[in-house]
């Protein structure tokens, strides 16, 4: 059961999830950037992610590179199918990525790059949601390549996923700010986090109800006995975490909402995985069919087994160095 392709599917799922959580909160800060009130708040929000954002984005490269390496067929089929949203995402990430440095370079250009940071984050998030929605709803495949058109990704479901992910990243970003900030910024972050939490939970409900209608296979997995026994913990835990999040946001426990939001993302991710297994391109190409030969997977697994724990350790260390609330006076004396 745990052969090389399955192990690599788990490693990639882990990489994508880590990306979603880590870049999710710094993209989320970009999403709410214009709503932070003052330039001082924006500067503090930006400084809270400046030391870590490019490490966060490296997980996206691992996700893409890993898919290319471990499942070249899936990569070769998915990328042309997702042509427009992928390119939009890349360009949006470029715009927002450079804003971290550029906004300090010339005060006269700051508002331009702040807008770039906001719109870039928003567009990248929407594009990622659309990519997810398109993959879930399935794409046309013929032989070893994509056989649809370059607008096939447009559908009510994929667009809704784009909006849903915007709410979700907004939640991660604002709860991160709750964790990291003080004073006015913290107050604003709480208000925004509550709105984002309501929207996110609403979308989780809508997507959960919609997904089974996309294919009878997904429906069977969720609603037939005995599978339902194994999948039931997912909605149950989701409800519990939603309650924890609400409690943290209402009683202003700064350290609660961010981990609770990550937990919600984790459960949604698990739910998706349950819905899609054993496919890597839903209902067209399975994990086994798309996998690179064992020689490739083995060679990479040696590296991943040694290096991923090290990467997690020094990433954690880097977060530890920059732990705690951002100093409200930093840079102002």
């Amino acid at each position, binding site marked *: 059961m745990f052969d090389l392709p399955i192990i690599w599917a788990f490693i990639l799922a882990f990489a994508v999830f880590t990306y979603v959580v880590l870049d999710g909160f710094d993209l989320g800060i970009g999403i709410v950037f214009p709503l932070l009130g003052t330039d001082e708040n924006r500067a503090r929000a930006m400084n809270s992610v400046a030391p870590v954002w490019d490490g966060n984005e490296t997980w996206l490269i691992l996700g893409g590179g890993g898919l290319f390496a471990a499942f070249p067929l899936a990569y070769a089929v998915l990328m042309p199918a997702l042509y427009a949203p992928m390119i939009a995402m890349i360009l949006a990430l470029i715009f927002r990525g450079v804003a971290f440095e550029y906004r300090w370079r010339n005060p006269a250009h700051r508002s331009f790059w702040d807008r770039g940071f906001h719109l870039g984050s928003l567009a990248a998030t929407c594009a990622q949601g659309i990519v997810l929605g398109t993959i879930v709803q399935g794409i046309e495949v013929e032989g070893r390549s994509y056989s649809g058109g370059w607008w096939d990704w447009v559908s009510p479901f994929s667009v809704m996923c784009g909006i849903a992910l915007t709410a979700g990243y907004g939640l991660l970003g604002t709860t991160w700010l709750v964790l990291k900030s003080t004073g006015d910024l913290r107050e604003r972050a709480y208000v925004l986090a509550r709105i984002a939490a309501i929207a996110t939970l609403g979308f989780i409900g809508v997507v959960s109800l919609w997904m089974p209608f996309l294919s009878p296979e997904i429906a069977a997995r969720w609603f037939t006995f005995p599978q339902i026994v194994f999948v039931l913990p997912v909605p149950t835990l989701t409800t519990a975490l939603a309650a924890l999040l609400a409690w943290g946001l209402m009683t202003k426990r700064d350290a609660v909402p961010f981990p609770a939001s990550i937990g919600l993302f984790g459960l949604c991710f698990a739910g998706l995985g349950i819905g899609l297994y054993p496919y890597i391109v839903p209902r067209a190409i399975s994990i086994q069919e798309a996998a690179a030969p064992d*020689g490739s997977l083995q060679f990479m697994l040696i590296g991943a087994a040694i290096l991923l724990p090290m990467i997690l350790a020094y990433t954690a260390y880097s977060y530890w160095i920059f732990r705690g609330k951002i100093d409200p006076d930093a840079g102002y004396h």
Partner: protein
Amino acid sequence: MIEIPDAVTLARVQFAFTITFHIIFPAFSIGLASYLLVLETLWLRSGKAVYLNLFRFWMKIFAVAFGMGVVSGIAMSYQFGTNWSVFSDKAGPIIGPLMTYEVLTAFFMEAGFLGVMLFGMGRVSKSLHVIATGIVAAGTLVSAFWILAVNSWMHTPTGFSINDAGQFVPVNWSAIVFNPSFPFRLVHMVLAAYLTTALVVGGVGAFHLLRERTNAEARKMFSMAMWMVAIIAPVQVVAGDLHGLNTLEHQPVKVMAMEGHYESYPQGAPLFLFGVPNEAEQRLDYALGIPWLGSLILHHDPDNPVKGLDSVPDEDQPPVAAVFFSFRIMVGIGLLIVLLGLSSLVLRRRRRLFESPAFLRTAVAMGPSGFVAIVAGWVTTEVGRQPYTVYGLLLTADSASPIDTPAVAASLTAFVIVYLIVFGFGIWYLLRMMRRGPVETESRPNEGQPKNLHSVLMTQPPGVGDDHV
């Protein structure tokens, strides 16, 4: 009438455009990261403020250049799939794992410790900080190792077999990584990165020396850069020659295009200094050549017969003009750089290194020349391996995605617009920072803000204090 280019041509233009922008930043980061490590080490050893000032100055520039490298690199890692999906399916089992190793061993290390390097001064001890700088510098080199292994394998594929699905599959990983052209390409590229950075550092130093002859930081960086140029440039000439001989062995057609050898020369080939390749007539117009020198350089024997493009079917030939001209640009700049290094040695011996305005102006003018040489060199090697992506095995025309021409045209347009805005501003900001020079910016009255907010400049680290996490 203008011919409407097909999807494959547009995809090639897009790849060439995005990688040309991308290569500039990693090349600069490779050299600059090592330079920062040297500066910080010298500062810790000597305690001299001049090294710390230089370290801080170049670190800010590094931060901007590195960020531009990261974001333009994301574009590269997904472009294989969007525009070259057939290539990705076939070559993925070989080059995918190498690129994954690049991410695991280099990108994470660089990104993980870059934050500590940029924002950690004052938060971590000095020795830990210099270790972080060292890890970033090592990461840039490890990254070059893997990506050049990938690139070299596409030029000189070894250690593989082909399976039923038409995929290249690994047989021997050390043969794949250490393929025949890899050591030469790696040395040539890393030296190019060091040389390019030295030219930039030297150009910035010379610029400030022209303003103020006694500027201690400018003198120090100029002197260091000129040592580097004087030592590395001649080594690079030798490395380039060896790389060329390696290409002659494995990709002789590319060398024919580089040399402009349309005809075969049974009794020794000339070296063409100049000419205009005429593809239609398959000859070099306005050729200016030195007899026998071509054979002497390529085979170290003036009478050695040399085969020309007349021995190669038209459909297996690369576009000659691009290869021929770009090669001459690279070599021409390379020789100028050697000359600059030699002049610096002469002037240094006469104790006039900082005193000759003509030399300083030349150094300023040569500041960006390394980038031009790098791009020209890449055009030579990458256009020269056409019409193949995996040399001799997979045609470029058979590598592209099943994407319609309008889609590729639209994405190419979007890339051009975004890159021109983003990297246009970025290069402008970099030039402004270089012009301002290594001074404490916060004490400058003409700054738009009382103190630069950016934590890079802050002596006081951000957010020291309560631990809520």
